[in-house]
């Protein structure tokens, strides 16, 4: 208690109690996060199926992955393409609609709710089923296309289109990012726009010199969270396209699932999960490093 008195001058017993309140989290962190995290690193250096005890094999899982596994690079490529389609598409819609929605108007909250709805349902099996039925050959998407006199499209038969169809499912759920942009837009001081108007700036000009720079911190946050999620996408690839055609939608999450839980290659799948983790970390580090070139954290005083 004496030692505590030195550290926190005003402290009393109440401060130690904080640790007690936080203790469920500490236990959960150690047991359900830290332990599995470190264990998967260890397993990634082992040959381990559920039937026999694990055997340390050094780097051979990683070597196999990069030199022999015929599905590793296709999975990596599909995942990167998916991230490159889905994340910018989602953020672009989220930003565009947020800017249009950011006015004082009746019923705005109705629209906001409506646009948010896909984010609520999007990850469910029901919506995966819906997507699969919509994009099949005689599905509703093709009925619209043929209705306009164009030939029907084989969405799940052509590699690039299959990837686009599952990316669209992700883009459809732009509402959650949009809500954050809206919150950011509300914080931009009105007088910046007034000053811009007096200076004769066009709306477009004001968007690029006022709105966009002030939203970059939120854009950054959305970018990180959505990319981390997109790297791990599983449900859409598993239920809608099942990885096909020609592995064009064989996302990393799907490969991980199959190796671990269908082929019981726990050691190898752990190595895969670490490559996924390192890819996400690499992206995150690059994003954080690049921040100083494009995000804007000062108040808007410079304009």
């Amino acid at each position: 208690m004496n030692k505590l008195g030195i550290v926190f001058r005003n402290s009393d017993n109440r401060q130690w109690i904080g640790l007690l309140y936080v203790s469920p989290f500490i236990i959960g962190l150690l047991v359900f996060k830290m332990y599995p995290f470190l264990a998967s690193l260890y397993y990634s250096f082992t040959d381990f199926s559920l039937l026999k005890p694990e055997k340390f094999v050094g780097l051979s899982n990683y070597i196999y992955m990069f030199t022999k596994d015929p599905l590793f690079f296709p999975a990596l490529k599909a995942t990167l393409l998916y991230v490159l389609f889905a994340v910018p598409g989602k953020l672009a819609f989220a930003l565009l609609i947020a800017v249009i929605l950011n006015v004082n108007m009746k019923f705005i909250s109705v629209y906001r709710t409506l646009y948010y709805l896909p984010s609520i349902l999007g990850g469910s099996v029901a919506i995966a089923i819906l997507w699969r039925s919509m994009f099949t050959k005689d599905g509703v998407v093709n009925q619209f296309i043929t209705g306009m006199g164009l030939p029907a499209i084989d969405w799940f038969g052509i590699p690039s289109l299959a990837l686009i169809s599952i990316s669209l499912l992700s883009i459809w759920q732009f509402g959650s990012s949009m809500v954050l942009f809206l919150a950011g837009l509300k914080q931009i001081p009105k007088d910046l726009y007034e000053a811009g108007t007096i200076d004769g700036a066009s709306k477009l000009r004001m968007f690029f010199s006022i709105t966009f720079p002030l939203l970059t911190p939120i854009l950054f946050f959305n970018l990180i969270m959505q990319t981390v999620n997109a790297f791990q996408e599983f449900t859409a690839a598993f239920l809608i396209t099942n990885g096909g055609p020609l592995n064009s939608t064989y996302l990393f999450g799907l490969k991980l699932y199959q190796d671990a839980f269908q082929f019981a290659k726990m050691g190898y799948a752990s190595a895969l999960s670490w490559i996924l983790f390192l890819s996400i970390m690499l992206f995150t580090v690059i994003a954080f490093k690049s921040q100083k070139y494009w995000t804007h954290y000062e108040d808007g005083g410079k304009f």
Partner: protein
Amino acid sequence: MTSLIRMGRLSFLTIFGIILIYPIIWLISASFKPLPEIFSTVNLIPSRFVITSYINGWKGSGQFGFNTFFTNSFLLVVPTVIATVLSSVIVAYGFARFRFPTKNLFFSLMIATLMLPNAVIIIPSYLLFRNLGWLDTYWTFIIPSMFATYPFFIFMLIQFFRGLPRDLDESAVVDGCNSFKILTHILLPLSKPALVSAAVFQFIWTWNDFFNSLIYINSVKKYPISLGLRMSLDTSSISNWDQVMAMSVLSIVPCLIIFFLAQRYFVEGIATTGIKG
């Protein structure tokens, strides 16, 4: 001129909104259509309303019907939501209101786990649960949530508690409240929006969860709705789309109800606490 812009804006938002929601409306309408009509017309109004798809779909094709899967989903989701909210509140209170050694360390670790991909811990978690004998039970969801393993909610509640003035706590101390009583009697009554947001999010996420259920729950008897739906998708080789769609509609109904009941709390809520959905 400005009214013209307003009209333009309003019509764009409306048309775009309709396109966005069309798939959901189409799903609902398709579930009431006779089977041959589902893939032959873009019309939203069925030529005649049928509910046989609901009746037959509900019975299911195998030993267990959707009454089992629905019950299972509630048995899985409700305790998980309660455990998540309770544990997150207690932990968030600890972080928001007390200064204790190691606080900064654990706070940073919490933020770090916010970005820790589920994929990297899923295999050891599976093995851990297997050794503990929890596989094929809902404990795989409930027990981790009792230990505040959802940093998203802790962070959200910390942000909320920080917004409540500390004077409230201090006057309660003067009145002889202990710290737990301050939480339950002073802070929680003021935290309804944050608590509702957390509960709604966790309900929807757990209800819709597919990946974890697929890995942890193996026996059909214990399938939650997501696995039940997926099974009907497999066995039918899609000859009975009408039933699959009817059950899909039913599966999203609880989320829709909760979303519309709580949306005023939570679309605002996440916007003000400033974090993803």
